[in-house]
């Protein structure tokens, strides 16, 4: 077979293989279907072939961005996790995926990007710490504006702002959606039978960030934790299909120190350089004048001294 396709996705954290829902969906489906993908975990979306993450670069140098497109491509390559599904189960998959996109995704966008405390304390901090200089200054803000615009367009309200009422509505819809998913899952291991399918990938992708990320305003997480079967579903998939990432939770913090030191040193250098150049542009000129004056001064002094003498003589 030809070389495997390359998948660019966001880095992982909090025990997850990736922090983004779409990336998690694609990663989970690839694991379920046994598709060999060359993973490139990056934290700079500008280095991905399509400018956003996730992105799949196929053998034919085609770039796919939407999770649904990537899954269809993998299916065409005979990596099909939905092979055993009956037609009705396939129809149910489509319906429940639509349900999640309409009811759960807006709440996710709100919880991570729009809710002020969550955004400042967790999301923006994570992206600013992980993105390279100088993207970390403006890209998180731009991403937040894009997400706010997306939420506004989804709700059809141009003047949407973060607020308690909006939060209650979105979280209520999300809680209802999670309840419906929990009812559908029941006590089964996966949604359809004993092997996972694309619906399991989508549910995992949406619920895992809620479950694992500690947000200051964690109402979604509280509700999810009351639904035991969904919680077990997520932890099960993490243990079975992403064992390395689950243990990676403790390893992330030491890795942050060296880049931080380097960034501090760089910032100190830049500050010093700025001050020196300012001094050069304004102070150095005067320093040079002092030089010339210093050279000229002795003769002046002598002149003045002789003048003084003359004056003194004149006066006296």
């Amino acid at each position, binding site marked *: 077979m030809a070389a495997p396709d390359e998948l660019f996705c966001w880095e992982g954290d909090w025990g997850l293989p990736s922090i983004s829902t779409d990336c998690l969906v694609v990663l989970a489906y690839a694991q379920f279907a046994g598709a060999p993908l060359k993973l490139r975990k990056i934290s700079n979306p500008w280095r991905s072939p399509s400018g956003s993450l996730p992105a799949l670069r196929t053998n034919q140098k085609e770039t796919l961005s939407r999770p649904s497109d990537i899954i269809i491509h993998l299916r065409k390559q005979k990596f099909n996790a939905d092979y055993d599904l009956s037609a009705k189960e396939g129809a149910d998959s489509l319906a429940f995926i639509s349900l999640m996109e309409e009811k759960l995704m807006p709440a996710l966008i709100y919880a991570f990007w729009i809710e002020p405390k969550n955004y400042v304390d967790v999301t923006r901090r994570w992206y600013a710490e992980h993105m390279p200089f100088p993207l970390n200054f403006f890209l998180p803000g731009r991403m937040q504006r894009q997400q706010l615009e997306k939420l506004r367009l989804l709700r059809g309200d141009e003047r949407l702002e973060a607020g308690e009422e909006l939060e209650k*509505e979105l979280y209520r819809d999300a809680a209802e959606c999670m309840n419906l998913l929990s009812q559908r899952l029941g006590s089964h291991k996966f949604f359809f039978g004993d092997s996972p399918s694309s619906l399991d990938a989508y549910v995992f992708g949406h619920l895992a960030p809620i479950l694992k990320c500690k947000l200051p305003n964690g109402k979604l997480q509280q509700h999810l934790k009351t639904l035991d079967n969904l919680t077990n579903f997520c932890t099960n998939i993490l243990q079975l299909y992403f064992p390395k990432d689950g243990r990676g939770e403790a390893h992330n913090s030491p890795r942050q120190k060296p880049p931080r030191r380097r960034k501090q040193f760089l910032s100190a250098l830049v500050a010093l350089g700025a001050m020196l150049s300012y001094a050069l542009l304004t102070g150095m000129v005067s320093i040079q004048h002092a030089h010339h004056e210093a050279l000229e001064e002795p003769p002046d002094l002598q002149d003045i001294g002789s003048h003084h003498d003359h004056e003194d003589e004149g006066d006296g």
Partner: protein
Amino acid sequence: MSLAAEAFMSQMAAAEPWPENATLYQPLKEDQILLSDCASSLAVQAYLRMCGLPVQVFCRANAEYMSPSGKIPFIHVGNQVVSELGPIVQFTKAKGHSLSDGLDDVQRAEMKAYMELVNNMLLTAELYIQWCDDSTATEISRPRYSSPYSWPLNKILAYQKQWEVRRKMNAIGWGGKTLEQVYEDVSQCCQALSQRLGTQSYFFNKQPTELDALVFGHLFTILTTRLTSTELAERVKSYSNLLSFCRRVEQTYFEDKSS
């Protein structure tokens, strides 16, 4: 609608029975209304007929602006105004009329999921075909949408609406899709609905629910609306049980008008 307003509305709704002079507003049928709005309006009309609630349909050119949420259709019942199928279903429920009471939890979960499927795929596809496909937008959507207005307002409003819909398509990831891919999505959605319906009369066996009303509204409108190409109608026609479903609902709930 905000939660406090919803709770208030439920309380008010429960207080009075359904009046005789309830009205439904939609844009002008002959000249102005577009595919997606017509589908939503027909879905609400079908739902109200299935509940046995009488309603008069009024066509107004400014229906979209009268609506509290900006979406068509909306109903004016007593002294309350409610728009869109979801809130209208809750409103009638508060008045004691409901079609989905007989469903158990799993079935209700499936019903809600399939309603979201129709909203997510069929409605979005209709909006895409209307506003993002250049030939349809130029020949049908823009002229119809702006027909009640004079120059230059008609141009401004039409382009404003088109721009708004295109932004929404980009935000939800449909901006990069081709027309062929959109037709594929419609086929997939119809296939899912056809699978779910199977050989039954309605989606949940003997009694129609709001899902039946919603599916009827969209499919019947697609089958009976003339667009620049017949591809969309052809895609729906290839599922025979959906065709007979539409015919059945039409005969049961809409033909008593003529007889």
